[in-house]
């Protein structure tokens, strides 16, 4: 399991957008770096990120090797009430990690 940091604002109001900041520990090996033996290191990156609230997609991102190591992703969302936010990162070599957080409207 890769380490994940997720920042959710303390105060969330219904119908107002707010930003979620996420960071996941991942080397994002680009597939272009030499391996010291004349070849290149195989690509190993996160290729997709999705955020869904109560089962509906809020935000999605397709990543390429041009994204820096330990991908930092900030996106915005807007809710009408409290619920569960599910974040999912998928990548090369079967990488698949999900995190679930409660979003509470104040």
């Amino acid at each position, binding site marked *: 399991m890769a380490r994940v940091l997720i920042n959710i604002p303390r105060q969330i109001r219904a119908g107002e*957008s707010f930003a979620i900041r996420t960071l996941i520990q991942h080397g994002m090996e*680009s597939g*272009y*770096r*030499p391996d010291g033996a004349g070849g290149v290191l195989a690509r190993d990156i996160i290729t997709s990120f999705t955020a869904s609230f109560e089962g509906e997609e809020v935000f999605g991102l397709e990543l390429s090797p041009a994204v*820096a190591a330990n*991908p*930092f992703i*900030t996106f*915005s969302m807007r809710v009408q009430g409290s619920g569960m936010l599910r974040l999912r990162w998928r990548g090369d070599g079967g990488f698949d990690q999900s995190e679930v957080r409660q979003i509470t409207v104040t």
Partner: protein
Amino acid sequence: MTPRRLILASPALLLLPPPQPARASAEAMAAALRAFTGGAAVTPGRVTLDISPLVENGNTVPLSVIMPSPMTQAEHVRAIAIFNERNPQPHVVTARFSPHSGQAMLATNIRLATSQTIVAVAALSDGSFWSDSAQVIVTLAACLEG
């Protein structure tokens, strides 16, 4: 060249730059952009790409993009894609939005292999495309060093 001359010249051969991996080009970027828009016309404006014009380390370059929009079912930003001109691949990221996004915004850290132009293209629900571009100077390149 006589063998002796070849030996004398050999240190110079060592100084030759190593072969470079394939780079994206302006044409490759245009092709990736066309694949995203489906050939539709792209108008400069409305979307704002925020990236530092002078970057010391190309391994981690903060980038953000935002487009003002009411984000309703009838009128929202569907997607924003970021392209570059001179990394090994022209595509950087593609973000999908929905009315639940509240705001069409994205911030992330990217890699830049060299000084180049970055382009953001936004796709709206009404079928129009808008773009913004930025010139970035990179002093330490990403991707290519061991």
